[in-house]
């Protein structure tokens, strides 16, 4: 009989199983054998047998390695230390096979052989190594042109969608921006000095394939400020069914029902076979472009919308990010954006409480106050609900008296 009957249940059924992966790796790695035993014990005792590890690290770095120790080293010595190493992923997650092979070889030599590509911040996550291996891992990685990612109260490893490398919707060069910001803010990435973590994600268009609006303190989302480019001949082909949209069973797009009537701002019309867009009322949601990509294209005057404040529930509940700057050009060297982030960090540094994400601080002090302090212009969309407290007096009111 197996000595891990409880976790063996997780292998049954048609779904992928992390236990299956660990068992396969355990055939040649002793750490993984003890990992399975420790997991079985946790399932049996209905509690974790990992202790909070604090930071173990490499010289000069305050992030990138998450210490993990088990509470039963005498029972399972193979996992008495089981630290995680985060590696800064390349922009857009492009790897050559030799780069991946190198990472796998490194981890078989120095760790459990278990990897997680990718963690929610974007890093490559290497699971399970011991303190004695850390400096060797770091040296080896550095010699091969890699670096550690972020952890703790620092700027976390910026991440981005693949943008202009493969996607026709990209309004900004996400990979170039990601690479530049990572290099610009090396200190902020490796030397934690913030009240808490700060994540930056860059999406090339409002489809937001990196889910920046839900998962980053600062979302940079590509957009355009001129008009949607429209090809009337291609619109007619979608109408006749010559061009098809993959998501419908019959492939056809009903331009009135599927596109125009679903435009969230009602700024489109389709009459007599002619599609019209009132571009000044378009909110760049991408719906029409996604449905008819050969007929409608993003504008050519690209830039980004900057949003702040998303986070997953940890100390407080989850937040989505909201717009701070509706449009900013994002051309190298991105000075305007960097200055804006500098002001935001400065203010957060001075006013943020310990373990308070920037979104939580904005909720606490009020978006109006925050916008004023960081020198941005207020816009009507920043108001999320009508004022319910009538006892507000404006400065002008007092001046008039």
């Amino acid at each position, binding site marked *: 009989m197996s000595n891990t009957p409880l976790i063996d249940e997780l292998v049954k059924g048609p779904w992928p199983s992390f236990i299956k992966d660990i068992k396969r790796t355990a055939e040649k790695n002793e750490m993984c054998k003890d990992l399975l035993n420790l997991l079985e014990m946790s399932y049996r005792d209905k509690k974790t047998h990992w202790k909070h*590890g*604090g*930071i173990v690290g490499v010289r000069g770095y305050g992030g990138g390695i998450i210490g993990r120790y088990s509470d039963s080293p005498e029972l399972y010595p193979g996992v008495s230390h089981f630290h995680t190493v985060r590696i800064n992923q390349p922009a857009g997650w492009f790897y050559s096979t030799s780069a991946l092979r190198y990472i796998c070889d490194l981890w078989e030599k120095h760790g459990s052989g278990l990897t997680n590509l990718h963690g929610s911040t974007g890093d490559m996550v290497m699971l399970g190594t011991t*303190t004695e291996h850390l400096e060797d891992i770091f040296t080896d990685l550095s010699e091969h042109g890699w670096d550690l990612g972020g952890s703790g109260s620092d700027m976390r490893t910026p991440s981005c969608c693949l943008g202009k490398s493969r996607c026709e919707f990209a309004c900004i060069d996400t990979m170039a921006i990601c690479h530049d910001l990572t290099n610009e803010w090396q200190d902020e990435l490796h030397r*934690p000095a913030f*009240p808490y973590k700060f994540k930056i994600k860059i999406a090339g268009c409002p489809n937001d394939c990196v889910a920046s609006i839900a998962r980053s303190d600062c979302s940079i989302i590509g957009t355009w400020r001129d008009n949607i480019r429209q090809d009337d001949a291609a619109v007619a082909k979608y109408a006749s069914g010559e061009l098809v949209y993959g998501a419908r069973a019959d492939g056809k797009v009903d331009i009135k029902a599927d596109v125009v009537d679903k435009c969230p701002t009602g700024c489109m019309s389709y009459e007599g076979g002619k599609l019209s867009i009132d571009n000044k009322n378009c909110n760049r949601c991408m719906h029409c472009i996604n449905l008819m990509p050969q007929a409608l294209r993003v504008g050519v005057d690209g830039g980004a919308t900057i949003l702040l404040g998303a986070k997953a529930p940890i100390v407080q509940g989850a937040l989505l990010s909201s717009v701070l700057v509706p449009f900013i050009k994002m051309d190298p060297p991105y000075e305007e954006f960097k200055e804006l982030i500098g002001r935001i960090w400065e203010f957060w540094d*001075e006013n943020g409480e*310990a373990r308070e994400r920037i979104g939580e601080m904005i909720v606490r002090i009020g978006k109006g106050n925050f916008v004023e302090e960081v020198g941005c212009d207020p816009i009507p969309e920043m108001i999320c609900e009508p004022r319910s407290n009538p006892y507000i007096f404006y400065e002008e009111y007092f001046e008039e008296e």
Partner: protein
Amino acid sequence: MATVEEVKDYIFKKVESYAGKKQVKVPQMTQDVIEHFGEDNCSKKDVKEALRELIDDEKLVYGYFGGTTIELPHKEGSAN
């Protein structure tokens, strides 16, 4: 103007006095140092530079306690 050595010395003594009693984070320490020397004599940049040297010389290390802290070098408690 406070010299880097003076700032380093102040930070180190503070962290030493907190050892085993209080966890200190970088933003708090920065405020403390600037208050001590006065805004005209010490900037955030000076504190950052002093911290960088203390960490690189391994006089202080980063720790983690609900956010990143700065501590005297020690063996992780959890490792025991």
